[in-house]
């Protein structure tokens, strides 16, 4: 809340990070972590049988993986940081302080991984003698190993955000990494990545071997063995992961309502897991037994099913974290749990360095006596609501209230509701400010509903210094004179 706030009022801030992160997960799991070991296995099989067609197939699959992972994959990975620094700077700033060395280690592994993958790909057609080929295959498995380690480190951070475990009292990197959800989540993601790669590879194999029907059957049969092996392990890992989540959730908020809502999610999720696993299993099984019966589109459909499953798991991961962005430590609005007593006592505005003045459009038609209150309401909206909600776009705050109050929008009614909102909707953080700010926010929400003006973020209209913030700003003169004294 002390950074100028970027805000995307149409699609919402969460959508930006969701798109970037989901794309990254799909590429990381399906084309890197899971794919490279499979490619190396196909290459190894080619060397063992002396049939060059296997080597060609492995190379072509690797070409696709290489181009996508080193462009979209690499950039969406960095992109998650770039997005997070805009969307929830306090959360990512805190995570980096805790996990600096984990990320640093991950970076070193990542450098090795990328260097190896470049060598692996670029030497493919150059290292042709049997000894060099053996080395090449070993390189392939090494790349796979390094990719897995990078994923294993990041999963620790993802799991930490859901349930920091003993870090809340110990505040060490070790206690952060050894959080309760870490191993189950890793046990799920690892076979998931390998299964996903199998499905992608089956699809690519069907495409790349079109001209050689006999080999196509043989290749599809072999490639389908891969998901056939990993899907049951994905199921088992998913089961373990899903079974530790309720505890984490109880640690976050132990309310009956959330439990009920969560149980619905959990049932849906488990049904999804089982259904997807069955589809994959059937297609792979059929691919092994009767490769001719499985059209390319079926592999594509299977791929979509896996993407759906992964997306669902990521959604649950996000959901389970709520109302926190870092379990028990920081709410989704970027305000620390520990800050609440102070902000409740003094109000948000007293401690906010920046304010978000009304824009020209918002000013038009507003009676002068309401200006200050609406301006306060806007800043409260930006600080307390805008990380997750838009005014009238995706996850619109206006639409949420419209669904409840329809025509009867009264400031008092809204304020009363917001006061108790976190009890009724336990995935919402409590309102962080004081009563006056609550009324100002309610006024502003009514204004949003009436004018339907978009709320522009700091990237468009900039920020202003909050004149009321205690200590938060010095006049340039005072700062310069203090500098002179030093």
């Amino acid at each position: 809340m002390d950074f100028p706030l970027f805000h995307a009022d149409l699609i919402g801030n969460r959508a930006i990070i969701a798109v970037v992160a989901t794309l990254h997960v799909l590429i990381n799991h399906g084309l890197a972590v899971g794919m490279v070991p499979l490619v190396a296995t196909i290459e190894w099989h080619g060397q063992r049988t002396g049939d060059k067609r296997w080597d060609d197939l492995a190379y072509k699959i690797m070409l696709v993986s290489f181009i996508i992972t080193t462009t979209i994959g690499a950039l969406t990975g960095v992109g998650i940081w770039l997005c997070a620094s805009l969307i929830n700077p306090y959360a990512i700033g805190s995570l980096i302080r805790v996990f600096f060395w984990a990320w640093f280690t991950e970076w070193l592994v990542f450098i090795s991984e990328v260097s190896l993958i470049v060598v692996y790909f670029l030497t493919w057609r150059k290292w042709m003698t049997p000894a060099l080929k053996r080395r090449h295959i070993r390189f392939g498995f090494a790349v796979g190993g390094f990719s897995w380690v990078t994923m294993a480190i990041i999963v620790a951070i993802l799991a930490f955000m859901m349930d920091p475990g003993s870090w809340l009292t110990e505040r060490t990197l070790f206690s952060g990494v050894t959080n309760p959800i870490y191993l189950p989540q890793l046990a799920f993601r690892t076979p998931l990545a390998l299964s996903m790669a199998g499905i992608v590879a089956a699809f690519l194999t069907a495409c790349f071997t079109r001209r050689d029907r006999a080999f196509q059957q043989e290749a599809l049969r072999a490639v389908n063995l891969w998901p056939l092996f990993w899907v049951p392990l994905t199921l088992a890992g998913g089961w373990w992961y899903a079974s530790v989540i309720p505890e984490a959730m109880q640690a976050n908020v132990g309310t009956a309502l959330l439990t009920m809502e969560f149980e619905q999610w959990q049932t849906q999720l488990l049904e999804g897991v089982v259904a997807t696993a069955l589809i994959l299993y059937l297609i792979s099984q059929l691919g092994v037994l009767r490769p001719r019966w499985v059209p390319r589109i079926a592999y594509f459909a299977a791929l979509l099913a896996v993407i759906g499953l992964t997306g669902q798991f990521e959604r649950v991961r996000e959901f389970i974290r709520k109302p926190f962005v870092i379990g028990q430590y920081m709410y989704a609005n970027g305000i620390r749990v520990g800050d609440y007593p102070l902000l409740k006592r003094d109000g948000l505005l007293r401690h906010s360095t920046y304010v978000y003045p009304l824009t020209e459009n918002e000013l038009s038609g507003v009676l002068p006596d309401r200006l200050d209150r609406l301006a306060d309401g806007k800043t409260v909206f930006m600080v307390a609501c805008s990380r997750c909600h838009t005014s009238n776009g995706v996850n619109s705050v206006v639409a949420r209230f419209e669904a409840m109050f329809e025509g009867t929008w009264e400031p008092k009614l809204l304020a009363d509701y917001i006061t108790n909102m976190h009890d009724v909707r336990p995935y919402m953080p409590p309102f962080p400010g004081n009563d006056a700010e609550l009324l100002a926010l309610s006024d502003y929400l009514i204004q949003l509903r009436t004018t339907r003006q978009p709320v522009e973020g700091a990237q468009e209209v900039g920020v202003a210094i909050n004149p009321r913030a205690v200590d938060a700003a010095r006049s340039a003169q005072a700062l310069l004179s203090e500098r002179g004294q030093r």
Partner: protein
Amino acid sequence: MIPIPKDVPLALPAPEPLLVVLLVAFFLLHIVFVNLMIGGALLTVVYQIRGLKDVRFDRLAHVIADTVTVNKSLAVVLGVGPLLAINTLYTVYFYTANALTGEMWLSIVPLVIAAFLLTYLHKFRWHAMASHRRWHIAIAALAAALFLFIPLIFLTNINLMLFPARWTEVRGFWSALLLPNVLPRYVHFILASIALTGLFIVWLFRRAPDAKIQAIGVDRETLVRSGYRWALIPTLAQFVVGPTVLLTVPGDGRTGQVIAVILAGAVIALPAIWLIVLELRSHGTALGRRFWPIVSLLTITVLCMGSGRHLYREATLAPHQAEVRALTDRYMQAVDQAAHEARP
């Protein structure tokens, strides 16, 4: 008014000097590969255009293009470490600049992806597009244009973070871009990219196998000399652009120490330039012998410039950082007090 925001109230994960060393060292490593990527992309276009009249230069362009995709992969991965370090050391400053230029900051992701995909398309379709040379060059030119634009986004952020007094004036990326010294720094950076790529070309062909040289069709001496020429001219230009950068940065951080370190870097570049001139006059086996001395001297120059840049940042931000720390401490005391009062 200068905004004084609160910092994240968690301790730094390592002693500050260690983080600074990580930041400066790894940033320089990252930027070297970024230089090679940008310079390589530009020279590919230049040689491919020359190749329209003389096919040997098209083959040379192909050799350079092959290196761009490798350098770009290293540039990206080596960038993660410095990004992590700057996130940690300058959380308040960096994230503020990111938010104020938000749309453009986010567009780094699609723009870099587009540039990389175009680079691959250009490289892997070289022979397939032989009969559509102009379209093929257009792809390279588009990639190069993206490569030229993206650093502006980073530079604008890195510059904006240094000046809290300007934060409330900024209205989006373009207004932040127009702060006084972004463009001189940008020119400084692009010239460095071309110069470094020139040296890279010398390295590439100085000891390359004869077969590789013959495949291009241009003799080794010409190739090496052209590399030195690409290095020499921009480096000479830096003696005008460099002082412009130093004069246009706001004065607060321009301490004696900063100027001394940067001057030292510039002075060390002088013998390197002299050696490049000697190389350009050499023939046969004598040509290329001074390569490593040149690289060593210029490495010291780069280290001086990188350190000077950091010292400037420290000098500019130190007073404000002290304010931020003091405010964060006071705020955390108030947090504790309020929590104490709220306890039943």
